[in-house]
């Protein structure tokens, strides 16, 4: 596997898209290094790319950070690590909705919440300022993963292996 670190310009371009969408504090990414393949941006610990150059046969280093598409989609694993630093475009869910999400089901937000989520106005509660598109699903202090918000519908984007169909905490 050939690992090419993102140059400063590529790094800025990718991070700025996610920072704009989720209002992450930029400092969160200071300890990360990034590299890309055709479809994904990968993240690893600072200095790991240089250290891995001396190792033959590396298949993976770190893990996927975001996937390219019409918009950049941040991965579940990264959201679970740094999602707490997002101050925009997250949807706080109830316990019942969190269970549905972990079980892999889509969520129909309650009417009030849908109105608040799609309003995208700063005057709404901070936990409710989400616009259509990729959003972080938050339950209490835990950032469970990523969903795609369209009006009152929240499409579940949890990877298959993480879904727990019989989840009930």
């Amino acid at each position, binding site marked *: 596997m050939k690992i090419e670190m993102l140059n400063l310009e590529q790094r800025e371009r990718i991070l700025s898209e996610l920072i704009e969408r989720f209002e992450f504090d930029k400092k969160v990414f200071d300890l990360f290094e990034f590299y890309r393949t055709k479809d994904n941006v990968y993240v*690893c610990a600072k200095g790991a790319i240089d250290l891995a150059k001396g*190792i033959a046969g590396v298949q993976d280093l770190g893990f996927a950070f975001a996937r390219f598409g019409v918009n950049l989609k941040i991965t579940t694993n990264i959201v679970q690590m740094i999602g707490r630093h997002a101050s925009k475009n997250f949807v706080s869910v109830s316990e019942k909705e969190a269970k549905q999400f972990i079980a892999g089901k889509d969520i129909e937000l309650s009417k009030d919440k849908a109105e608040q989520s799609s309003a995208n106005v700063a005057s709404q509660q901070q936990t409710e300022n989400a616009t259509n598109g990729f959003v972080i699903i938050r339950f209490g202090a835990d950032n469970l993963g990523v969903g795609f918000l369209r009006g009152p519908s929240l499409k579940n984007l949890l990877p298959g292996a993480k879904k727990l169909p019989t989840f009930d905490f």
Partner: protein
Amino acid sequence: MNGTIIPRLFRERCNKICPNPKQFSKVIQEPLKPCIRINTNKISREEIISRLQKQKWQLKQVPFYENGFIIENASDDNRIGLTTEHFMGYLYMQEVVSLLPAVVLAPQKGEVVLDVCAAPGSKTTQLSQMMCNTGLIVANDNDFLRLKPLKYNIEKCGCLNVAITNVDGRVIKGQFNKILLDAPCSSEGQIRKDWKVLSRWSEDYMKSFSNLQKQLITHAFEILKPNGALVYSTCTFAPEENEEVVSYLLENFENARLEEIKLNDFKTSEGIAEWRGKKFSPEVKKCIRIWPHQNDTGGFFVAKIVKNEN
């Protein structure tokens, strides 16, 4: 497990080397209590303890590792694997004795560490958090099918300092500050978790691992940097797979020496210096054996080898 027939030869072998064989025979038929490791790559120790205690989980500290806890009140209806904390990767289910090799290896921030037989990643992810997600861990496994669970666990535990390779452990290239060789073995020490290990058990099966283990430890020592440390571990009781392998290394490399292993409040036995008329290097007494009845755990063997500069 109760009612399982324990092979006579297995019992005889253990009786010769095991302290208190009667207690051993009794305990291996009892199930293990689940144990968790707090994943400090994702959450602080204090925060998760507080959350678990609020949920009435009874936690008993693993004496030699601050992030290890035995769950005292788990049951089939009360499983910690079905909590948000587990889903989030704040916890990792890992047997008490499986926490030992990484603790003995004691990796430091910024080092380059090799985990020779890494899948499914319990020890790799533990090493990662012990290194505070810095430096580099090369998590290798020669079995391609086992890379998927390895990768899953690395991602779930948020390990950013891990590179995966799929190479035969006898030909890995590189130079490493520390190496963990948790070798493939006959798994006798896993009896409490999976009684089927007894249905596979035979002396030939056990001996088939010994040659491979000698090749693996030899190569691991060759790619270890001077002053580096190599931890060799197995989850079996067989001296052919433990002291004999370590003794083989000591006999072939003058610059290999064993280090004492000290664990707080955890009972261990010293390595066996002779087995069936075969004398091993007296140094192997520095290895440790963990018998299931000593601490109510699975069985394990650990040796710490240091490479002298000359």
